[in-house]
């Protein structure tokens, strides 16, 4: 039996509300397939299953809020019989106090298996869901007019205009919290924990980008728009290259000890413009990817973040975070580490600055790179080596752009 549990979605997301199942009992599931959608304080997340199997039973009802680690579904492996999985599941559920799963206990697992989950499903477009948050509209009270009864933005706005006696009677302090407020709260909790627990130290280094800029311009001059490269992705490659030299910045602080990351997965801080807040989904195995692949993945990741369609694997396992505030025009950024990670790299704006080259003052593009790191794991000397490696890597862009086998 394969236990499908709600995966960790990052330090600031310790619970989620199941919005809908995308599979039903009897469906075959392939490794990596998205099986359900879970709403968190930050966004609705597509949750993947990491095993091949056949859905045996769905144990969480849509609309239920559950903590990370909750057993949500059981899957059968290829060689397992349904009766065998029933037995295993009954034993498991007798052991675990399954949170918030409705009554009929192990005696009748078939009831759960057969439950028509789809009947209760309420289809809501992400945009409509966002609008409902803004207008404080309870979606359960809205009738959908879209395809399959889906709730549209228009339905939400119509519902918001309709006078509801309960809303008028409700005192001001009973106003439900919006997604923006909810997100601010979880970010506040994670950042306060970071500043409380992690002894940060900070370093900065100005990195000349004359060679990198020229290389990028030459590349882009002969590339179509769909193949164009970005300085942002070259900076990410440089972070990954430097981390290979200083692995103690890549990983987690857990149970009083450093746990090195398996692979270099860069969390990319992306600000959410509507209502503020940010999310840092991961680009996986960055050293192995060439610039073309990484740039396309970065573009896709940002687009999906804005559209609210991130996957659980992107939120669960970044080994370090990179924040690039250059486009907002700041000179440098000193970040707050996202626990349980142990370092954060920041980039400011790329600007032309006076720089000494071969004894002469020249105007060249320069970026200030910074490192915030956990003093329990590394010290300033190693942090300095990281920034030096980062600077050196950016002086050989062609080499840097390659993916390692």
């Amino acid at each position, binding site marked *: 039996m394969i236990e499908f549990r709600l995966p960790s979605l990052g330090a600031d997301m310790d619970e989620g509300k199941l919005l809908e199942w995308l599979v039903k009992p009897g469906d075959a599931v392939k490794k990596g397939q998205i099986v359900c959608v879970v709403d968190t304080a930050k966004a609705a997340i597509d949750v993947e299953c990491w095993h091949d199997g056949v859905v045996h039973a769905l144990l969480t009802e849509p609309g239920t809020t559950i903590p990370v680690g909750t057993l949500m579904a059981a899957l059968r492996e290829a060689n397992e019989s349904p009766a065998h999985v029933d037995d295993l599941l009954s034993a498991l559920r007798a052991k675990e106090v399954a949170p918030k799963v409705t009554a009929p206990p192990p005696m009748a697992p078939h009831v759960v298996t057969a439950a028509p989950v789809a009947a209760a499903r309420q289809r809501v477009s992400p945009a409509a869901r966002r609008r409902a948050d803004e207008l404080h509209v309870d979606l359960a009270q809205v009738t959908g007019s879209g395809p399959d009864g889906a709730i549209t933005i228009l339905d939400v706005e119509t519902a918001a205009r309709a006078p509801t006696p309960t809303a008028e009677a409700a005192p001001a302090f009973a106003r439900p919290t919006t997604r923006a407020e909810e997100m601010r709260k979880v970010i506040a909790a994670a950042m306060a924990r970071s500043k409380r627990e992690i002894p940060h130290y900070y370093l900065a280094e100005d990195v000349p980008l004359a060679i990198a800029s020229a290389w990028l311009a030459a590349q882009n001059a002969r590339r179509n728009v769909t193949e164009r490269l970005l300085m942002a992705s070259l900076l990410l490659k440089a972070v990954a290259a430097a981390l290979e030299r200083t692995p103690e910045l890549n990983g987690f602080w857990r149970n009083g000890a450093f746990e090195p990351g398996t692979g270099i997965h860069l969390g990319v801080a992306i600000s959410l413009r509507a209502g503020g807040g940010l999310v840092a989904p991961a680009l996986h195995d960055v050293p192995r990817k060439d610039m073309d692949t990484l740039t396309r993945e970065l*573009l896709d990741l*940002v687009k999906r973040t804005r559209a609210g369609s991130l996957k659980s694997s992107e939120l669960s396992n970044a080994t370090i975070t990179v924040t690039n505030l250059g486009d907002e025009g700041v000179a440098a950024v000193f970040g707050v580490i996202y626990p349980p990670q142990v370092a954060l790299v920041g980039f400011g704006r790329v600007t032309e600055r006076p720089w000494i080259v071969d004894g002469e003052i020249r105007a060249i593009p320069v970026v200030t790179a910074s490192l915030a790191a956990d003093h329990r794991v590394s010290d300033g000397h190693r942090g300095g080596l990281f920034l030096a490696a980062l600077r050196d890597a950016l002086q050989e862009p062609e080499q840097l752009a390659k993916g390692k086998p």
Partner: protein
Amino acid sequence: MNREELKRALLDELNGIAPEIDVAALIADKPLRNQADLDSVDWLNFLVALHGRLHIEIPDADAAKLTTLDKLIDYCAARITA
């Protein structure tokens, strides 16, 4: 495709890559990236979307000059009819 249709197509694609911005509030002759808060990744996503919608190639050297919605519309209009 006339200018009005072209403008609608551009705003439509902009909305696609940045659903949370209010495209109706954009001022056509003021810097677009500032108003819409587009970073370099959003901007490239927007150019790729335009390429897909209008089948025009925007060279890197030209893209930097297309700072306002008006300039974008002019540029695309010339490319489509060309």
